[in-house]
């Protein structure tokens, strides 16, 4: 008896001792202190091949094109597995998402059908990794986990009227309770689950509100669905998820989508519960790469990051160094410049001389309650390119040498790309024009809106204009955008993923413009009207996403060629956006050049602006001028202000003739005039990834102005 008691006592003693050591380990990372670290296995590094036994496609696979084809897709799509999509009333699955991308209709939570005008070439379901599949399990009262207190609000989500816009208030407060992590309830320190969480480096296991089996089964269903719908040569899918992180204090958005290169992936997504620091995400990606699984992470909604996405310092406010820059570029070759929640090319305050900068600006932080202004500096792509050059000067490397794509971030599985048939992205909350704020509210909806905005902590729930009272929901700043386009040899995972890695990509606002962009020192030797134009340009120059190294003699030349979307407005102009560091002053500079105009017009040699081509929109019926604008635009361009010593980047921007914005379409369909404080029209557009001009090494070092450079830790 005594013997047994002693054993039991010493077991308890050992248990307590190990808990003590673990708490030391967690709080102190010095190697001689960390006793158990060696015993840890990293559960997020276990690789699983999710490939499925597939019917073989009989459709002959098209031959690869060495001059590459443009493939259009969306890399940012949520389904019912996302904690918020489920709260938004979405019950559609990853399979539904891929069916939609291939051209089939799927149902919106409000009951209407969503269908693409033409199928897409690739698609990736990217549900929030954090809490993936869990909310569904809370709402499903047959699961064990739904019996907990924290799951109860989700049962209430489902009272009779709740699949309607009336439920918006309760839905919003639930959304913020997940984001605000009030449902994260850790087990007490002594609990065995804490030990398990420690030894498998899986913090989630320490949470009462988390069920690992449900989480893994949601993730493996996402991966299975991607693999099942992948059809090499015809339709490409990627396994992916969203790493939904933010800064602690300001709640600034640092969201990224992680895309896998093959049928293999980690057994679970690495999420914000593992770490909120993006650098830890990159470390995980690096380790996965060593195991043969390549991934990229794609930042999005930098516009709502309050200046944090493209900072001049690291997440922990250290100086950026060359290793940081290399690591970031290794893992983040491309950035999402446009999506439903606004466009992040540039902001009017950052680019006062760019007449097209005021375009689909969303000026609040993502998910902020109450809606809070997002600081433009550090939040936009063009300034990040400039800051990258600045950091390069100070030998910190360039962490912002990324290519560009667009995507939608739809939460209803279906990308909303068409201004004339728009459903925004958060299901019940913005699935109809009254809630989106594009048509006046019916009187009975005003009170509901007030309640909803109270949940959002927004003092002003409605706005009064000439035609009536409108919802002040913020959805007016969202829009029907965008697409990712990859120049790839063929429509396969491998070929398209490689295009992302090379940054041979461009972004559009949902239109299917096609855009070629080359730079070189001898491109004027190519006949622009020759059939071999593209193969010669590849041979003699570099394409979008590349460096153009100075040859010490010549000025760079650029070939740019765009083709319109046959279902959209004609092209109005192609511009080249140039950014550089002026060596005489150290200032970052930028300038927009119109390089080719529609209808045979010429850019003014002084102002570099195309004359007005006369294209107009009829706001009463959204018809557009049919006799002006171009089906294609093409030119060879030389930078008239080129200075050999200046580090520079150049990217192309293509503008369509104006057409109606979705808010105008909404109003017209409902028999109203467009709301007077919104842009009535939009110029759909495309942006290429930049070409960076790299001058020869100079003896003179100019430390540029701009940004807040910390000089510590610089090698």
């Amino acid at each position, binding site marked *: 008896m005594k013997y047994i008691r002693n054993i039991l006592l010493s077991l308890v003693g050992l248990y307590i001792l190990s808990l003590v050591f673990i708490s030391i380990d967690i709080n102190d990372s010095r190697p001689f202190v960390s006793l158990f670290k060696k015993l840890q296995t990293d559960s997020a590094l276990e690789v699983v091949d999710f490939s499925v036994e597939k019917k073989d496609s009989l459709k002959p696979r098209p031959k690869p094109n060495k001059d590459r084809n443009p493939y259009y897709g969306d890399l940012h799509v949520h389904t019912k597995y996302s904690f918020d999509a489920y709260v938004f009333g979405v019950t559609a699955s990853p399979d539904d998402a891929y069916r939609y991308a291939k051209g089939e209709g799927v149902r919106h939570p409000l009951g209407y059908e969503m269908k693409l005008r033409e199928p897409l070439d690739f698609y990736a379901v990217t549900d929030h990794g954090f809490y993936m599949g869990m909310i569904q399990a809370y709402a499903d009262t047959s699961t064990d986990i739904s019996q907990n207190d924290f799951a109860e609000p989700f049962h209430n989500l489902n009272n009779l009227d709740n699949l309607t816009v009336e439920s918006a208030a309760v839905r919003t407060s639930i959304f913020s309770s997940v984001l605000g992590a009030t449902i994260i309830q850790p087990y007490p320190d002594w609990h065995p689950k804490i030990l398990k969480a420690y030894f498998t480096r899986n913090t989630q296991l320490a949470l009462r509100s988390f069920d690992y089996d449900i989480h893994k089964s949601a993730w493996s269903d996402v991966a299975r669905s991607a693999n099942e719908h992948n059809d090499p040569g015809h339709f490409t899918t990627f396994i992916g998820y969203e790493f939904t992180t933010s800064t602690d204090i300001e709640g600034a958005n640092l969201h990224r989508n992680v895309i896998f290169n093959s049928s293999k992936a980690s057994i679970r997504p690495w999420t914000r519960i593992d770490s909120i620091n993006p650098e830890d995400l990159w470390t995980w990606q690096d380790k996965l790469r060593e195991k043969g699984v390549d991934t990229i992470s794609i930042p999005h909604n930098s516009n709502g990051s309050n200046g944090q996405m493209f900072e001049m310092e690291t997440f922990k406010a250290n100086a950026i160094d060359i290793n940081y820059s290399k690591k970031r570029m290794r893992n983040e070759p491309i950035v999402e410049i446009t999506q439903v929640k606004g466009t992040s090319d540039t902001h009017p305050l950052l680019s006062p001389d760019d007449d097209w900068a005021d375009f689909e600006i969303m000026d609040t932080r993502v998910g902020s309650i109450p809606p809070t202004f997002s600081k433009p500096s550090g939040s936009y792509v063009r300034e990040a390119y400039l800051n990258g050059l600045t950091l390069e000067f100070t030998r910190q490397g360039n962490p912002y040498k990324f290519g560009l794509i667009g995507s939608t971030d739809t939460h209803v599985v279906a990308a909303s790309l068409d201004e004339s048939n728009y459903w925004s992205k958060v299901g019940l909350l913005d699935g109809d024009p009254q809630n989106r704020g594009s048509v006046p509210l019916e009187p009975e909806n005003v009170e509901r809106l007030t309640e909803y905005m109270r949940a959002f902590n927004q003092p002003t729930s409605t706005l009064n204009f000439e035609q009536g009272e409108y919802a002040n929901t913020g959805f007016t700043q969202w829009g029907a955008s965008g697409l990712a386009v990859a120049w790839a040899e063929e429509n396969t995972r491998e070929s398209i993923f490689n295009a992302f890695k090379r940054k041979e990509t461009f972004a559009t606002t949902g239109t299917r413009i*096609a855009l070629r962009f080359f730079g070189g020192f001898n491109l004027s030797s190519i006949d622009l009207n020759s059939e071999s134009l593209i193969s010669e340009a590849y041979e003699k120059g570099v394409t979008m996403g590349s460096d153009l190294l100075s040859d010490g003699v010549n000025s760079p030349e650029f070939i740019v060629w765009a083709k319109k979307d046959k279902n959209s407005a004609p092209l109005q102009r192609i511009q080249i956006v140039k950014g550089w560091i002026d060596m005489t002053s150290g200032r970052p500079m930028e300038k927009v050049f119109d390089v080719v105009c529609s209808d045979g017009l010429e850019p003014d040699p002084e102002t570099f602006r195309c004359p007005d081509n006369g294209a107009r929109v009829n706001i009463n019926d959204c018809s557009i001028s049919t006799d002006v604008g171009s089906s294609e635009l093409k030119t060879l361009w030389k930078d008239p202000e080129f200075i050999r010593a200046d580090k520079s980047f150049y990217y192309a921007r293509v503008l369509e003739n104006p057409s109606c914005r979705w808010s105008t379409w909404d109003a017209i369909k409902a028999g109203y005039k467009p709301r007077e404080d919104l842009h009535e029209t939009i110029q759909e557009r495309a942006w290429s990834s930049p070409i960076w001009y790299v001058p020869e090494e100079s003896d003179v070092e100019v430390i540029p102005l701009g940004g807040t450079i910390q000089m510590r830790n610089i090698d």
Partner: protein
Amino acid sequence: MGLNSYDEKEIYISDQEIISLVTAWKSQVGRNPNDDEIARIINNLVEEEILYREALKLGLDREDRIIKRRLAQKISFLKQESIPDSPSNEDLIEYFNKNNNKYFIDSKYTFSHYFFSNENNSFERSSKAYIDLLNNTSINSDPFFLGKNFVDVSEREIKSEFGEDFSSNFIDVELNKWIGPLESPFGHHIIYVRNYSQGYLPNITSVLKQVEVDFLQTQRDEAIKNYLNQIRSEYKIYINPDLQI
């Protein structure tokens, strides 16, 4: 709405329920749904309700639309699970014969084209070029964005690159002959179709796996349809005939 308040085989679809769905539909699409569309909306509601009631009988009761949908999905899965995993060869052959359009391999075209951009008098230039071509005189065309030669492309792909009108020119097209000028949204084209492979129906053995997957999927869909039809007759449906939308 509680179950106790009415007979469990009577379904009352409330005006409000229909109106709210129709309103959502209308505000999105910009017009009222037509009769067919209203019928479809109501039919969906009715079917969902029936499955819901059947699910309730299994004791899984919660009163809301999301759970109804989820229960409806659940009972659908239950009914689907009764389908045997390995269908017989006869079944597969019959299914293949009935649905052979699904397995049809599209016709493919291999063609070259001269392109004349509508940025530059495409009709005049292409008309002249066509005559020059017949006389073996050299011509001046423009490069096309997606290239000059298209190998083994289907009609659907031609439609997506060049538009519907242009693709209709490929029906019964003559081989090895210059044809044009043909108009597309980008300008005019003179095409030369070198090869045409007639679409064909493959032998069932080469698509057996796919037929099996499709057959099972159809069986599952059928099972739920049959089940619905079978119990639907037990329900009386009440819808306000005077409802104005």
